[in-house]
């Protein structure tokens, strides 16, 4: 294996898998692949947890014995990026329901921006993701209600935290995979350096 090539996995149990794969394939020096089993998880230098339904993905993680190995790899330092449902999976606390991986010191509120009729898109400058503007797409999106001291807030929108990082864990309430913009992907790849 060429050590210069980064092997980026996309958890492929449900959700916006194809969209993340397509974005990764546009980036040089990346080999993107879908992760459904432990052996695929072990090949990943870094992993994306896509958008989708967090309850469904969490259920499938347990059913297919990926839950423990995934926890172990993230605790072992593998860079991971959760978009929307992925952010909910990583959160230590979810308001009103049991949490899942409980690895990142954030409390999230599901569907915080509302139902589908409240979904929205906005383009703003997020310095962490580069000097230009980054388009943000929110679909029945969660937000981070509160974050622990080790969490670095990367983006706040209308008074709510929508992107954050804690060491090897990156989370966004929004979906860069639904836009053509690769800013957040480049940021994530730098985490995998």
């Amino acid at each position, binding site marked *: 294996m060429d050590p210069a090539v980064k092997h980026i996995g996309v958890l*492929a*149990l*449900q*959700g*916006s*898998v*194809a*969209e993340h794969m397509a974005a990764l394939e546009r980036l040089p020096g990346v080999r993107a692949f879908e992760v*459904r089993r432990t052996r695929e998880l072990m090949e990943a230098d870094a992993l994306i947890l896509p*958008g*989708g*339904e967090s*309850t*469904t993905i969490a*259920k*499938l993680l347990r*059913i*297919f014995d990926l839950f423990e190995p995934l926890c172990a790899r993230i605790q072992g330092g593998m860079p991971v990026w959760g978009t*929307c*449902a992925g952010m909910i999976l990583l959160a230590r606390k979810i308001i009103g*329901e049991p949490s899942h991986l409980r690895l990142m010191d954030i409390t999230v509120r*599901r*569907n915080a921006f*509302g*139902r*589908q*009729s409240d*979904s*929205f*898109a906005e383009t703003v400058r997020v310095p962490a993701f580069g000097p230009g503007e980054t388009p943000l*797409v929110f*679909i*029945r999106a969660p937000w981070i209600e509160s974050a622990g001291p080790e969490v670095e807030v990367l983006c706040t929108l209308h008074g709510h935290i929508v992107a954050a990082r804690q060491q090897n864990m990156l989370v966004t309430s929004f*979906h860069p995979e*639904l836009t053509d913009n690769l800013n957040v992907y480049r940021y994530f790849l730098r985490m995998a350096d």
Partner: protein
Amino acid sequence: MNAQNTQQYELNKNLAQMLKGGVIMDVTNPEQAKIAEAAGAVAVMALERVPSDIRKQGGVARMSDPGMIRGIQQAVSIPVMAKARIGHIAEARILEALKIDYIDESEVLTPADDLYHLNKWDFKVPFVCGARNLGEALRRIGEGAAMIRTKGEAGTGNVVEAVRHMRTMMSAVRRLSNMPAEERMAFAKDNGAPYDLVCWVAENGRLPVVNFAAGGIATPADAALMMQLGSEGVFVGSGIFKSANPERMARAIVKATAFYNDPDILAEVSEGLGEAMRGIEIEQIPPESRLADRGW
């Protein structure tokens, strides 16, 4: 169509993208909705009678009671969809007022208009519509549908029609992608499809919106079959709550949809499910009772 409309349409297509690889289950009360959510459904379809009961009981099938839909919205955190009759502008407005996440303009209900479907561009809420072939799918998308599903033959537990519709659609997409540009207009004419959408499909080799399978899916193997044929997810209507053990059937269909290409997992999840819903041969349904023929 103004800019705000275009952006809302993109967001509405985006929600369907989040449902990909998942199972959307018909539920008739909050208890069933909770069972569906616990089994891993990505969304539920709230309706008063599942298609097999509509078929049995007959009469006019209409939009569900808003109170019942609200009860289901309160019971689960996943998206909630509901059905409106084809062309019934007022039912669709009521569902929009309920902040439903997706409206199914559905042939399973008795059509309210025998000539026209809804102009879905007029609404903020997203629509999913049934189709038997590419022309029908593109007509619905032309009217503003943000998601497509095969019609299949709902309430039969017989997957043959869904298979036919999916194969017909996928084969037309493949044909279009190999078609020289000068043949596209004739294709649009022959299939009753908007020309710009025909060109889009030819250039991109896929539908411009997410495409699920529906109508007759009754077992985990049926769900896996539809995924193998190119479906991006499945709707299961009567198949779950008309089976002997709805919880187990629901979980098994969720697993089979996610791992549709893995025969070992399919074998494992198909074991000991008890009786699936009792099916109907399509030939035994009189033509006037076939739901798939509703829609224009």
